[in-house]
């Protein structure tokens, strides 16, 4: 298997899906000639031409609205928003249109589109270009929400998202783009709704998504030296959500930390904690569930403060040590 970057795996997924199905096309700000703000779409214009790799005006509402309309007429659009923060401008198209149409037409119309965008802090991009907004989308019925953490997952999940007949919000993380991992050459799809145990352990379960997965694994490896065995579970998709895999891990370890780089208040970690308490795992909990999340503040521009407001490897280690006592 080849060791490639997250960005390469994502690009391969887009390319392979466009080759596989001529109805798949991509559009967004600077995705064509410039090759994407983060170079995800580099080389696609050359291969597929302007018809299928479309540069758009700076209008997120127009990008998402066009995606919804073309999806309704039989295309399978991939819409890129340069920073996930600006999906907010397209919220009407996303929430009131994309998420509702299939339901309101009694299933006779469908909206097979992928809205993909990088989110998260750590690049010094300040408060308007650094948010993680996963929880906004998981709240809306009719949207599927995916947040991959590895090159392998991003490729397999992206293909599943393109092939899904529902609108999928596909949230990448800027800091994950250069990370490398093994990815098979052949075509594979990771079904939506399947969590993945990224590392097995017995003392405590860390439920982590996106950038928090590599941080949790690094913490787990350091904690291993102290004799603490940490299991890392990555939900991978937040809607639909794989309660079973998480429940089984919690039953095994009895202790849970939920690590997210979103803000804490009403974050997806709160939802996961509630799901655990509602499951058979409740009777196996041997400590209060701990949420390790970003502070409820905008992301600061100052690099030190920027790091301080979002959980880092040391924060995870400390939380685990406190919990395992």
């Amino acid at each position, binding site marked *: 298997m080849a060791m490639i970057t997250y960005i390469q795996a994502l690009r391969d997924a887009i390319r392979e899906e466009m080759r596989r199905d001529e109805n798949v096309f991509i559009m967004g700000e600077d995705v064509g000639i410039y090759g994407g703000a983060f170079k995800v779409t580099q080389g696609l214009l050359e291969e597929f031409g302007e018809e299928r790799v479309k540069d758009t005006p700076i209008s997120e509402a127009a990008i998402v609205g066009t995606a919804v309309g073309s999806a309704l007429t039989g295309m399978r659009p991939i819409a890129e928003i340069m920073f996930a923060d600006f999906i907010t401008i397209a919220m009407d198209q996303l929430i009131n249109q994309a998420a509702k149409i299939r339901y309101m037409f009694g299933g006779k119309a469908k909206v097979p589109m992928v809205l993909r965008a990088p989110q998260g802090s750590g690049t010094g991009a300040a408060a308007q270009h650094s948010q993680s907004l996963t929880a906004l989308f998981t709240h809306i019925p009719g949207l599927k929400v995916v947040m991959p953490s590895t090159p392998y997952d991003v490729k397999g999940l992206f293909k599943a998202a393109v092939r899904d007949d529902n609108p999928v919000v596909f949230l990448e993380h800027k800091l994950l783009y250069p990370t490398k991992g093994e990815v098979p050459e052949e075509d594979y799809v990771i079904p939506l709704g399947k969590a993945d145990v990224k590392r097995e352990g017995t003392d405590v379960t860390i439920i982590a998504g996106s950038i928090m997965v590599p941080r949790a694994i690094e913490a787990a490896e350091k904690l291993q030296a102290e004799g603490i065995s940490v299991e890392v579970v990555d939900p991978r998709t937040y809607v639909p959500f794989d309660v079973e895999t998480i429940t089984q891990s919690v039953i095994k370890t009895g202790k849970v930390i939920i690590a997210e780089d979103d803000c804490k208040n009403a974050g997806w970690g709160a939802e996961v904690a509630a799901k655990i308490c509602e499951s058979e795992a*409740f*009777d*196996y*909990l*041997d*400590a209060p569930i701990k949420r390790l999340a970003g502070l409820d503040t905008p992301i600061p521009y100052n690099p030190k403060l920027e790091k301080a407001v979002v959980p880092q490897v040391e924060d995870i280690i400390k939380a685990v040590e*406190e919990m395992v*006592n």
Partner: protein
Amino acid sequence: MATIVKMPKLGLTMTEGVIVKWFKKEGERVEKGEPLLEIQTDKVNLEEESPADGIVRKLLYEEGKTVPILTPIAIIGEADEPLPEIERAAAPTPQEQTDETEDYIKASREESDVEKTEKPDEVSDNPSIGKYGKIKATPAAKRIAREYNVDLYQITGTGPNSRIQAADVERYIQYTQTPKASPVAKKIAQEKGVPLKDIQVESGKRVMKSHVLESLGGSKTAQQEGSVLEEIPLTGMRKIIADKMTESVNKAPHFYLRSEVDMTSLINVREELNKSLEKDGIKLSFNDILVKITAKALEKHRIINSRIKGDKIQMLKPINIGLAVALDNGLIVPVIKNAETKSLAQIARESRELIEKARNNKLTPDDYTGGTFTISNLGMFDIVEFTAIINQPESAILALGKIQDRPVVTPEKEIKIKPIMNITLSCDHRVIDGAEGAKFLKTLKDLMENPLRLLL
């Protein structure tokens, strides 16, 4: 003042009992001496009477629960007595603790359990008990406590805010429900994750390193083979049999003496006697007559009717003969006390009663303790002869085979068909030498072949 009913200790070997049935519900009136509950011990079912008049205020355990002896199981009091304090006071207190338990309890709490039980009104100083007397424990700790019937109020948590965590409950169970163990055994058991309570040792013995290693080896092979059809827990009567038989074989060097007995006369005598006893509704079995004959033979050979106590051999005055009775799930040995003083009719009546009680699980500890010699008969299963393991602390056991017609060479050098019973005596060589055993067996054989000598 409320009365706390505790799980009684109904026999020497009893460490816990199962609450089979409550005869009273909470809130019902009960009179002193009225049956309150039925208890199942390792060997028998018994009815326990209420120790006081009053209202059954609280039943602390459900039917079917196993409870250590001397643990409070119910509270009887007046209808208007305040209950929460009583409930606290009645929280199960392991009374027969090992040294380690005491250390643990002391370490984990400043005040001992016993004191607390005696002073129910005093506010607990267990930091794991929070506001309104509520226990601070994690869901996992509560679940384990439920499964093992552990009272969380007895535990001090080591988690944040003195919260009781699963490990605290497990440690408590480990200390309170395990036998004594050597430090090395404990260490290995902990390292290998073997619960000490699951390790089989002779009753009253400490768990040693070898026991732990044995149990490790054993479980491994069973797992590797993957050939287990069904697992039967080695508990209750099964465990007692396992412990006692292993102890006997390990401790007592057995030797065996065999003899063949011509049963012609005994068969005739039994028929005659049964004819005359018919009107009294008594029917003598061969066992009944053999109890009488054995008692007579033991009177002559007192060394067979003895036991080892410390560094002495004690020859015993009473001749109490146990009869091994097979049950569906084990065996029990009810004892006919002072058999030498009893008539055949008395023995017949008594053994009938005991066997009946044994089969119905109704024996009292008195019925099956105090034996000095045991008879085991497998003739009804067509067994020609067998060797039995001595029922400690007795020194010998007699094994009877079936009566079979066999060709026998008579003193007149003729071959005759005679009903023959093979009998085997197992002796503890620490107490009995070959010649002594042989002399006893000879007396026994003579009496069996000439039962009229019983009259002498």
